[in-house]
């Protein structure tokens, strides 16, 4: 019955071919409209370069230096900062979340701080980050950390809280101590939740890094974009946006692959 209804329902939607056609139309229309707007002169071309101009700028920036370095070197600097901050957030957030899931006193003590700090936007840490750790690597790392840390902690905590009670009891019967319980039962059992958290955290971390680079740093894609904005070079700004988007997608895809692997290994459908 349900299958019958579902089939009847689906018949009202577009066929697969129609879907592909509409999809392509949307895609082409987007670029055509963009190109037409920039060529027509309704918007001055300096403010809205066409897609081809932006593509040309990306190619040019990959061998020509802009504000100190080529686009790819700027990107590499950003990725390095991101990687460090993200690893630090995971290295602190996941163990802390698991421990909070097991030791109630730790949960009681950490939660109020966590809850009150969570509402401070990661980007608001930028001033202190610069003051405490400088604007090289340390400062941006703190900003990424403050963005990427909460999802790591929350998901590890939830994973540990929702572990199958039978596993916990079985381990307790066999005399597992607290630390062993966390390492050998809670950690493996909450891996799927942790990896889901890592993905959210990477997204927020990458976005926080971009924000930090717009404000304080002297290299990286964010810095390149600010310089381009000061020079009124719209194509360069757009090139930076595209580069940021591409790296964001690459990070997400990598973590999604990890997630699928772990879910398959743990016999869970995501």
């Amino acid at each position, binding site marked *: 019955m349900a299958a019958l*209804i579902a089939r009847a329902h689906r018949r009202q939607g577009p066929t697969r071919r129609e879907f592909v056609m*509409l999809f392509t139309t949307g895609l082409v229309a*987007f670029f055509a409209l963009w190109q037409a707007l920039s060529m027509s002169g309704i918007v001055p071309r300096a*403010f809205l370069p066409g897609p081809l101009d932006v593509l040309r700028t990306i190619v040019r920036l990959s061998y020509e230096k802009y504000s100190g370095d080529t686009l790819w070197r700027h990107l590499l600097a950003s990725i390095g900062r991101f990687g460090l901050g993200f690893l630090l957030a995971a290295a602190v957030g996941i163990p802390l979340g698991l421990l909070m899931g097991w030791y109630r006193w730790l949960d009681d003590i950490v939660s109020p701080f966590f809850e009150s700090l969570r509402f401070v*936007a990661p980007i608001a840490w930028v001033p202190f980050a610069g003051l405490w750790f400088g604007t090289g690597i340390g400062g941006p790392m703190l900003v990424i950390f403050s963005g990427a840390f909460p999802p790591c902690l929350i998901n590890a905590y*939830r994973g540990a809280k929702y572990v199958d009670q039978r596993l916990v009891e079985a381990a307790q019967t066999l005399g597992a101590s607290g630390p062993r319980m966390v390492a050998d039962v809670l950690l493996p059992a909450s891996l*799927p939740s942790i990896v889901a958290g890592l993905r959210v955290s990477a997204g927020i971390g990458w976005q926080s890094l971009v924000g930090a680079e717009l404000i304080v740093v002297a290299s990286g894609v964010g810095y390149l974009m600010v310089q381009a904005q000061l020079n009124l070079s719209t194509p360069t*700004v757009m090139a930076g946006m595209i580069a940021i988007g591409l790296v964001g997608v690459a990070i997400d895809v990598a973590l999604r692959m990890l997630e699928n692997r772990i879910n398959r290994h743990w016999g*869970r459908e995501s």
Partner: protein
Amino acid sequence: MAPPSAITGNGAASMAAAGPAAAAAPRAARASTGSRRLYVGTIALAITVAVWFIASAAGWVTGGRFPTPSDVWRAALQISTDGGYGGGTLWHHIAQSCRLVLLGFAVAIGTGVPLGLLMGSSRRADALVSPVFMLLRPIPPLAWIPLAILWLGLGDAAKIFVIWVAAFVPSVINTFSGVRNVDITLQEAARVHGASRMVLLRDVLIPGSLPMIFTGLRLSLQASWTTLVAAELVGAFTGLGKVLSVATLDIYPGMILFAMVWVGLLGALMTKSLGWIETKALPWLR
């Protein structure tokens, strides 16, 4: 949870892959009770504040990198009285930031929710619009700030544009998956009884997707606030982010901390008010 679609990736309410609720019940019963939690939490926070005061009195915190309580008090007085700081008094900055967030948020949900409803209820519209989404969504909202400044300058318009970019996507995506997740039997039942498209939308799809819509609104509001603070830090005339950026240039830790506390307080206040509206709007979920 959501059917696989072109635009639903993460970003929706995919915070935790929570386990089976049944297995959690015994542990949940064992978990901290509210009062105990409040008790321990208050003591922990009080001890931290006490340590801060003692460390400042003893001269371990000098105010060069982290402010002493008297620094913060001085900053609070300075920004609250006549001349203010960074271009206005505290009230002035707060009013400006809140006004922009609410404006940008209103524009974003005013455009995002209807688009989400359209894409959710018509697969053709979904097919047509989703490629644009797929192209633009990976670009973080903060990366739009330089472009917004180039296009619209440092005034309100640029801020509203950036907030719109940030808040639009979560409201579209969550509305979309809310509509797609409405029980198909309900939809068929409404059709059997002769509901037109509009009636179906008004009486079945919108009420059915309201919980997801509110999830989207919450994410949108948080994104709006973060983005506005960032945009004001990059360049603005007034606003809390402007206070932060001037305080950074002046190396004035007391003011930095004071402004950060306000950023956190207002963020919490907005989220709580939206939660309150949600319980009023969705009485059947209480």
